[in-house]
């Protein structure tokens, strides 16, 4: 096994079975449908045009590339969408470092050439994003290769192992062929995905949101800066956008739709199921900078007569965000707000306890309460959630602390 860098291979002399120099390496190609890391063929620039040298015919790979067959056995190069070209698609391009959770630029690609039987197998091991790859390319052809190797060995490497690399590809058809699914990215925390997406150019952002799972996309979208949020949703087709918006918190979805041009938000609402649509459009009608505009309608409300065990059943079945779980609201006749029970009280009480026995005074505000006042209430009473009631004292929705923090931060 020996390591070799892409920049060393590019331009390397290629000799065929007779030992004669036939050309120079121009590209290295991986066919992800056959093998995710192995090089499928080399593109060699010969006197008779570009030819494809199959990796199976490689005898040695280093400063000189040796093939075990003759130049006539190398087919003419035909461009294909289904292969990943290391120089064109990877070198100098941006990739997502899944492990380091950021967007980085590729300085060089590290390969491994391992002897198997009589030939060598060449596969990608890592991408170099540090000074070593940069300097190697800077001094290539200027400094003798043994000197540069000695110099480069002293530089601590900064590489990303290949399995932690997510490629960025804006062409959807090619993404499918190259099996680019942003798996690593999807496993990250939504807030980290949001940070990465904010750094990407628009086309790449769109590519990510077209590809990743709808639920992950929705969570990540909620964390993204509102201006960029709007741009991303505008760029998606309305069906895909509707699927993502449906998965979002209704209040976040309403905020987003409120920012979109009317024809677009209309088209997205059209694609949603009637229930989802009703939920979101209800929220859309409220003034944006009031309690009603900030609230979510996914909360837990239970009749005052219920027991702790009933509350636990409702908690188990609850599909809204976890932030909304902090408080269980008690309602009387006609949804009138009667009290609130903190989750903690439920957790430490026996299942047969009456909820009304655990009820605490409830802090609530009318639906037209301005943002400032909402923030004051959270501060004054150290709230995790705040109930919003309509003019008849009925529970209309709740505001969660994370939304208040976001609101305060965006106002700066």
């Amino acid at each position, binding site marked *: 096994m020996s390591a070799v860098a892409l920049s060393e291979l590019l331009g390397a002399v290629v000799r065929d079975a007779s030992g004669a120099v036939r050309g120079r390496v121009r590209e290295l190609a991986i066919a992800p449908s056959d093998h995710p890391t192995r090089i499928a063929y080399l593109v060699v620039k010969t006197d008779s045009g570009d030819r494809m040298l199959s990796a199976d015919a490689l005898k040695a790979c280093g400063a000189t590339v040796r093939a075990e067959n003759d130049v006539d056995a190398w087919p003419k190069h035909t461009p294909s969408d289904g292969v990943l070209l290391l120089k064109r698609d990877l070198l*100098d391009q941006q990739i997502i470092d899944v492990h380091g959770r950021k967007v980085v630029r590729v300085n060089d690609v590290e390969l491994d050439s391992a002897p198997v039987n009589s030939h060598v197998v060449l596969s990608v091991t890592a991408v170099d994003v540090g000074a070593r790859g*940069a300097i190697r390319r*800077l001094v290539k052809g200027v400094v003798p290769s043994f000197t540069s190797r000695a110099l480069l060995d002293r530089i601590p490497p900064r590489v990303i192992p290949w399995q932690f690399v997510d490629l960025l590809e804006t062409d959807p058809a090619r993404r499918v062929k190259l099996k680019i699914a942003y798996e690593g990215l999807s496993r990250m925390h939504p807030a980290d995905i949001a940070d990465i997406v904010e750094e990407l*150019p628009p086309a790449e952002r769109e590519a990510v949101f077209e590809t990743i799972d709808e639920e992950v996309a929705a969570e990540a979208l909620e964390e993204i800066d509102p*201006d960029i949020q709007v*741009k991303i949703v505008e760029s998606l087709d309305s069906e895909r956008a509707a699927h993502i918006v449906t998965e979002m918190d209704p209040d976040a979805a309403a905020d987003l739709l409120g920012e979109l041009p009317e024809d677009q938000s209309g088209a997205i609402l059209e694609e949603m199921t009637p229930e989802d649509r009703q939920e979101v459009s209800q929220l859309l009608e409220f003034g944006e900078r009031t309690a009603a505009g900030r609230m979510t309608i996914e909360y837990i409300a239970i009749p005052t007569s219920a027991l702790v065990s009933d509350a636990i059943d409702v908690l188990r079945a609850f599909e809204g965000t976890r932030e909304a779980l902090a408080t269980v609201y008690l309602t009387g006749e006609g949804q009138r707000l009667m009290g609130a029970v903190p989750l903690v009280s439920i957790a430490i009480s026996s299942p047969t306890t009456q909820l009304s026995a655990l009820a605490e005074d409830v802090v609530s505000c009318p639906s037209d309460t301005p943002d400032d006042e909402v923030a004051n209430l959270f501060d004054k009473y150290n709230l995790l959630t705040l109930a919003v009631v309509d003019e008849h004292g009925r529970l209309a929705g709740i505001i969660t602390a994370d939304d208040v923090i976001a609101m305060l931060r965006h106002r700066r």
Partner: protein
Amino acid sequence: MTAATTTPSSKRSLRARLLAFLAVVGPGFITANVDNDAGGIWIYSVAGAQFGYAMLWTMIPTTVALVVVQEMAARMGAVTGKGLSDLIREEFGFRITFFLMLALVATNFGNIMAEFAGVASSLQLFGVSKYVVVPLAAAFVWVLVVQGTYHSVEKIFLMASGFYVCYIVAGILAHPDWRIATEATLTTPAQVGFRNYGHLYMVIGLVGTTIAPWMQFYLQASVVEKGITPRQYRASRWDVIIGCLFAAMVAWFIIVACAATLNRGGVTGIRDAADAAQALRPLAGQYAYLLFAAGLFNASLFAASILPISTSYAVCEGLGFESGLDKKFHEAPAFYWLYTALIVTGAGVLLIPSFPLTHVMVLSQVVNGVLLPFVLFFMLNLTNDHELMGEHVNSRPFNVVAWITVVAMLGLTIAMLLTQL
């Protein structure tokens, strides 16, 4: 795709168009105005003082050239969403980018020094010592950019651009001969002028200061930062055009002001931009003098605020270092160190008593001239790349104009270098 695809443009109300324009105004306007920095103001003042109205004809062709080049940068930013150094790196590789960035740092360092020198000399007119002014200005610039957000800083920069109006007021206060000035702007000069070495030298100076490499990097980056989309681009183009027209108008009034006063009064030797303000005092009155001095201070501080940050962004993005003001110091050390070093050394050298300022500035002009052809060549190459620009590639007539512009710019820049060596 344009905005017209959603609503037929004929039906769009004036108000809707105005709103669309206001949403994208900023990058083009700011970039064109920063170009009228300490060095530019000095050249315009000398042109007016030495040749009177005779140099005004250069304003129209240089404005056309400026619009053509700036439009390409803005279009690339809107269509690709990437900065110029990113694109150069992706299309032309690491080695070329590395040397390009090295040259950019070298020439911009010289520019930054010139701007701080402008700040110092403008306030020296009011009797404030440069040992006080320069450190304060450097600290101001550092804090403004690091503490501000893109939107708040852009507002400040737009105000600074608006402040250039004071040169227009000064021009009016100088009571020029409007008829002669207009005629001189619209007619090319008699043949005899070109055989005059001094005349040619001045033409080269005027044109040579018009298009600088840093502007392209800054403009494209701020179009990206502002999030302008291909759909909004039509409105954004007006930002570029109006910005260039305003900047050209400011230049025109500086020349006119100096022509009407200094040239008529026989004052032709002007060492720097502050000197021009000083010379105006007895000839054009106290107000014109104050406006010139204040204008110089504004222009220099403005450019000094933009150059270091734009250089740091371009270099770090091109070479793949973490960059961005939303990052903490330890997350993007190269970015912050470069930014800080450019300001500290750019301002610091002015405080060294025997520092060969002029020599270093001439040297940076040379690098500027060497860098410019490469940058313009790369820009033309990129804007003609179908894979990158899609339907927004240069049209054939545009390419003809752009190539003529580029070749003319190159010829004049090289000529300027030769005259300086």
